[in-house]
């Protein structure tokens, strides 16, 4: 027999009766997101080897540096990536999935379900975090980035001697597809295309908007999966282009 005080709230972080590895998912997410942040920050400041642009191969541009904006008058430590990454970064930072991920893994609020957080003030997504509601504006920008990255893919298949496909262009294609699936599965997009409507038969284009809502809903079920795979693919594409650009590997032409 053991004593238990069933007061209304445990005050120590981590208090729980759970016997499973509840700490493993938040720890994995913490490590995964941290690894990406460290890599991306390094590459942003590295400011080199982000493009393959020569007379014998196709044009490959790292997704971290796309669209390539070079402003000669800026200080040299400001890389072109800094001028563009705030937009996709803001999209991910305010994304409903990533919010869940970092509230759990970084803010430990809560780290896992039915695990005590320790007593502290809590305001949820009110006050300062009302800023999260800007997500839909980052979505509009993210949609523009999908178009820009699609153009990058077309550049990657235009070799000096005509159309061709290399491993690099496939990597960029994979990045565009996964980023597209991530962007088109967005909760805000789901709302904007039709989720906000209650009576589809009462509004113009109601059926079309219902179909659009259903389409985004299908993708939205795997939003977390698209969030992670697209994040990984962006890092991988950048790494691949870095290696090709620095001459470490050769971009193999398939046809």
């Amino acid at each position, binding site marked *: *027999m*053991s*004593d*238990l*005080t*069933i*007061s*209304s*709230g445990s005050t120590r972080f981590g208090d*729980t*009766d*759970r*016997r*499973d590895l509840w700490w493993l998912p938040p720890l994995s997410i913490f490590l995964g997101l941290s690894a990406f942040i460290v890599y991306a920050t390094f590459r942003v400041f590295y400011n080199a080897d982000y493009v393959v642009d020569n007379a014998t191969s196709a044009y490959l541009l790292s997704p971290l540096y796309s669209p390539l904006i070079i402003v000669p008058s800026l200080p040299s430590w400001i890389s072109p990536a800094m001028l563009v990454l705030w937009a996709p970064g803001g999209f991910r930072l305010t994304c*409903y999935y990533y*919010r*869940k991920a970092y*509230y*759990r893994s970084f803010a430990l*609020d*809560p780290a896992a*379900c*039915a695990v*005590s*957080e320790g007593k502290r003030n*809590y*305001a*949820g*997504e*009110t006050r300062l*975090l*009302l800023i999260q*509601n800007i997500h*839909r504006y980052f979505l509009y920008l993210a949609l523009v980035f999908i178009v820009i990255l699609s153009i990058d893919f077309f550049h990657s298949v235009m070799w000096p001697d005509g159309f061709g496909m290399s491993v690099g262009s496939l990597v960029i294609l994979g990045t565009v597809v996964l980023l597209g699936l991530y962007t088109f599965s967005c*909760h*805000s997009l*789901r*709302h904007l295309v039709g*989720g*906000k*409507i*209650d*009576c*589809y*038969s*009462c*509004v113009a284009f109601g059926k079309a908007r*219902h179909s659009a809502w259903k389409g985004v809903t299908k993708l*939205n*079920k795997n939003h977390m999966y698209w969030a992670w795979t697209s994040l990984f693919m962006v890092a991988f594409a950048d790494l691949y282009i870095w290696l090709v650009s620095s001459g470490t590997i050769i971009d193999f032409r398939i046809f």
Partner: protein
Amino acid sequence: MEQEVKLQIFRGDKDGGKMVDYSVPRIPGMVVLDAVHSVQKEQAADLGVRWNCKAGKCGSCSAEVNGKPKLMCMERMDKYPEDATISIRPMKTFPVIKDLVCDVSWNFEVNKKIIPFTPKEGERIFYQYEADRVQEFRKCIECYLCQNVCHVLREHELKNEFIGPRFLVRAASLEMHPLDVADRSEQLVKEQGVGLCNITKCCTEVCPEEITITDNAIIPLKERMVDKYYDPLTWIWRKLFKKKTG
């Protein structure tokens, strides 16, 4: 030799209590509620437990089994190792009346505060494809496991400011109804704390009816609140064209 199931069950009331060890015969197909009933029948006739249908549909037997919010009638014993001791506690978020029985009446009071279904005047026709979305929410059996696990209520005890996932689901089912004309947005933002939810999805994880609470109810409500209160372009658009959505 007869196999046994080892249990630790909370015995006490709102002032505190103890975890008491029991052991009962293991029966094939047994669920946690069977084990509790066995204790009640053979060893502790005064053990308090609320139950009714034993089929996962009445939402009465909610408790915390090995720390996880569960319906005891749907939690099979064979998923736990045979030598494991299984702890059974009442839901943490609500005051204990006796042993595994909680006072969940706070939820009934919250429910009364939600503006009820308000159908539009005139012809009332809508189509199945418009109703599909809100039918998911009708699956709720009001077991209150989502309310129990929600950290806003469980850890931060903001019961005066936040209505919890169960009632955000109810509000969403009314707000999205094709015939409903009431506007609950001001209530949701100012009194019912939709902004306090930080979408960490524990409610969705524990729902025995597998209602996608966060993605299908709470986030759509949050987006509607953005339309109404936090989106400057929508605000300007409304001012210019006096256009209402839906």
